């Protein structure tokens, strides 16, 4: 049952991808009054720890001053997208995006001059740039070696307070652990962070949990727990819990499906359309075509085919996990426009022998090569289309997982792409 005549929609820009890069691009477009239609199903966003990395590591060694490291990045990583952007653009991009997220409802400690050591669930620290307010007291407690009690929960699999405390023992001696039963989820059956987080949005559950936490605080100065303090309005729930417990509280990221990523996804999916974004999050782009005067993207919804005629487009589809790149036995391809992908010569060269080789795997650096405007290039080194831009993890020349530069890469290149869009549109 298909409407034979597709509905046609026009827009200034089509943003393909609903990860951090896509949503950052949407924020920057709305800031400039650029009309945007955004596509994607935001799957991978749910895998984030919540930390916004800028540039955290160099071959496994932590970076204290990310700005100094960025200034030297081009020498070690020629063509790294972050090495091609001025500090001012990167600073402005991350500053504005964290501010916008805060306005929408999740407060972040803005990036500073140096990286902070944030907490990982294994009991290790990681060097990152900007952390959610609900996690801030943890980094501060580590820095000051405050006495903290770390909680885990009956039935919660994959997070062990003992593991956390044991592995931090050398670095942070004042830690103790305690196990708490979450109200009504304490019979031992698997307790999921998302279910706990939604339950804590109810005042009565918070009061009951706070009572149980108070019973184990002892002489600790602060309380750490896995990230479960609400999906919506976590800052309010965090503050309420601190008041009920009577101690500073900090969250620790957990393995997916985890709450910090879920928060960002639900927040952006709900708040951005209210600010004027057209978000197509339920339907996959079925067809994309580069036209002389713009880009056409087609999809099908319950009422039939829809064609979006976009004056410009930003490709922010991510890598393999998000479907922006596809790996075949014979090579890597870009999935939407069949753009050329810079990649190692043969599959045998994609990966190193050791999974944990600090140099990272060559395949991680594969991706789309862009010009100074962040427009994808064809095989001959010319822009594929003057109205097509790319941002985020799909870009060649970086290794965001190992370098811990994912958010910085996504947000800063999104700003650069939006600036290109604005110029093209004459804004």
């Amino acid at each position, binding site marked *: 049952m298909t409407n034979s005549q597709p509905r046609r929609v026009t827009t200034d820009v089509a943003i393909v991808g609903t990860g951090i890069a896509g949503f950052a691009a949407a924020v920057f477009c709305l800031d400039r009054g650029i009309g945007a239609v955004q596509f994607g199903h935001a799957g991978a966003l749910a*895998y984030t720890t919540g930390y916004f990395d800028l540039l955290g590591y160099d071959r496994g060694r932590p970076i204290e001053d990310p700005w100094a490291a960025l200034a030297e990045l081009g020498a070690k990583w020629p063509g790294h997208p972050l090495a091609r952007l001025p500090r001012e653009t990167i600073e402005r991009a991350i500053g504005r995006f964290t501010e916008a997220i805060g306005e929408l409802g999740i407060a972040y400690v803005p990036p500073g001059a140096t990286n902070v050591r944030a907490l990982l669930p294994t009991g290790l620290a990681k060097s990152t740039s900007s952390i959610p307010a609900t996690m801030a007291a943890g980094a501060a407690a580590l820095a000051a070696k405050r006495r903290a009690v770390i909680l885990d929960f009956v039935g919660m699999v994959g997070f062990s307070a003992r593991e956390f405390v044991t592995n931090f023992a050398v670095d942070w001696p004042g830690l103790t652990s305690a196990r708490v039963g979450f109200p009504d989820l304490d019979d031992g059956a698997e307790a999921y962070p998302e279910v706990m987080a939604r339950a804590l949005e109810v005042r009565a559950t918070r009061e009951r949990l706070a009572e149980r936490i108070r019973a184990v605080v002892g002489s600790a100065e602060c309380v750490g727990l896995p990230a479960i303090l609400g999906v919506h309005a976590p800052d309010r729930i965090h503050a309420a819990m601190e008041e009920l417990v009577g101690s500073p509280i900090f969250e620790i990221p957990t393995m997916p499906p985890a709450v910090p990523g879920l928060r960002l996804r639900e927040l952006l999916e709900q708040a951005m359309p209210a600010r004027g974004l057209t978000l197509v999050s339920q339907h996959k782009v079925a067809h994309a075509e580069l036209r002389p005067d713009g880009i056409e993207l087609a999809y099908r919804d319950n009422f039939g085919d829809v064609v979006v005629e976009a004056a410009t487009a930003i490709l922010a589809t991510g890598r393999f996990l998000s479907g922006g790149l596809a790996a075949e036995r014979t090579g890597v391809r870009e999935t939407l426009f069949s753009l050329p992908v810079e990649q190692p010569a043969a599959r045998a060269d994609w990966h190193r022998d050791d999974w944990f080789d600090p140099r990272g795997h060559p395949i991680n650096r594969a991706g789309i090569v862009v010009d100074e405007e962040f427009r994808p290039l064809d095989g001959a080194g010319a822009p594929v289309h003057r109205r097509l831009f790319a941002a985020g993890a799909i870009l060649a020349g970086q290794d965001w997982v190992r370098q811990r530069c994912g958010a910085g890469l996504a947000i800063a290149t999104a700003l650069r792409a939006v600036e290109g869009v604005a110029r093209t549109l004459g804004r």
Partner: protein
Amino acid sequence: MTHDHDTDVLIIGGGVTGCGILRDLALRGIRGILIDKGDLNSGASGGNHGLLHSGGRYAAGDTETAAECRIEGAILKRMAPRAIDDCGGLFVAVEGDDAGFAERFGERCAAAGIDCAPLSVDDARRLEPAISERAFAAYAVPDASVDPFRLTIEQVADARRLADGVFLPHTELVGFDIVGGRILAAHCRNTKTGEARILRARQFVNAAGAWSMAVARLAGCDDVHVVYSKGTLVIANTRLTRRVVNRLRPSGDGDILVPGGTVSLLGTTSETIAGLDVVRPTPEEVDRNIEEGAALIPALAHTRFIRAFAGVRPLILPAGGIGDDGRKASRGFTLFDHLDQGLENFATIAGGKLTTFRLMAERTGDLVAARLGNREPCRTAVEPLPALERSSWTEPGHSARVWIAAKNPADNILCECEMVPKSTVDAVLEEAPGAEPQMPLRAIGVRSRIGKGTCQGAFCSIRVTSHLYDRGTYSGREGLATMRDFLAERYKGTRPVLWGAQMPQAELAETLHCGLSGLDLIDDHGEDGEP
């Protein structure tokens, strides 16, 4: 056993043969200690198809080995039925294969006594619809598949029950004390802790497989010559056929598909290698298997593969050499009594196949028992291997069945791909053969289904490690180090099959292991506190 000795017999090599010898001797009332520098099945016993040969594969060129396989296969089906899926097998020729070879196959099998029935191609494709429509000849043979991990674990468990037999993992042989033509003691080193240990025994048996030449040399014997033949296999994530399907032609790459529970194993390449330092499957070998395999089973061209692995066939070198193709070497085995090397209490068993391990253990057991003055006959062909509940954890679905029957919601599932709950991990830690304090994740994986599902340990490694810290198994950084080691090991197998749907998995795994867990950081900035 007198107080001068730690044990009657020290067996070196925890593969299926060493474990078989431990049990063979135990059935004669002889106590043994089995050591391995790695863990159970670290070598060829863990790096093969899990094929219980009917003998058909060798019928064309080696009637003796073919007949040995036939006899031993039949015995094992009676003695260890729970470790064996008696699924049957087909030999199928496809366009381009040698028609003469196909035609002679029936009579070659008959010469080795193998029960081989010609089939019409239509019948073969009715039995196995995955077979190519380009097939032109087919035979049915009594091939079967076997779980080699279960075989080894159950043999060690039974030897413990019968005669207090012991398996010591991570125990590497470094030298022998030899006085007057007798070995008095073996000097060993714990490969985890570096701790030295001396083990005294009356008899010493070398069942070290690919390492048997090196072990023999430590005893001053230069009569063992082994050729290392590397073979790479790849695992498809579904069971494509009910039966074993062999290509009906002289052995080559990608010519056999063996079902293993819910998956299929495709193999095998063959390449003679000089040493044992780096044995890992490569993308190129995987591609060769798939391209050849797809001629027989076309679905292999677009099947999802979850891992590859490589093993080393330890082949006994015949006089005159074999050139580059290890397939031409005999699959027979040799028992060396080393008398002509001037030693009276040392034996080496080398060569052979998974299918013939019992016979190899019998021959070795006969020699060792005679040397000890023990007159008990071998009983492994008449005494079924007890199927112990606690060694069933390697069987797909076993943990899940036990878990569902127990109806205990507090027994949380740790590995979601293979449905392995906490109680299984606890049982492995408490009672599996070779269980040890601070048991590494890899050792738990060998004894259960942990890490064997679609995610190849990406998620369950985190969940199991947390559980192990929780129950106090780990009390320092060694828990993270063992997780890292486990994942690095799984990666050797996933690396050559990283394309298609496996690539997003790998990307997610990297964000989990590095981004979330920080495992790539633990060695580098002085935080790996445990000495």
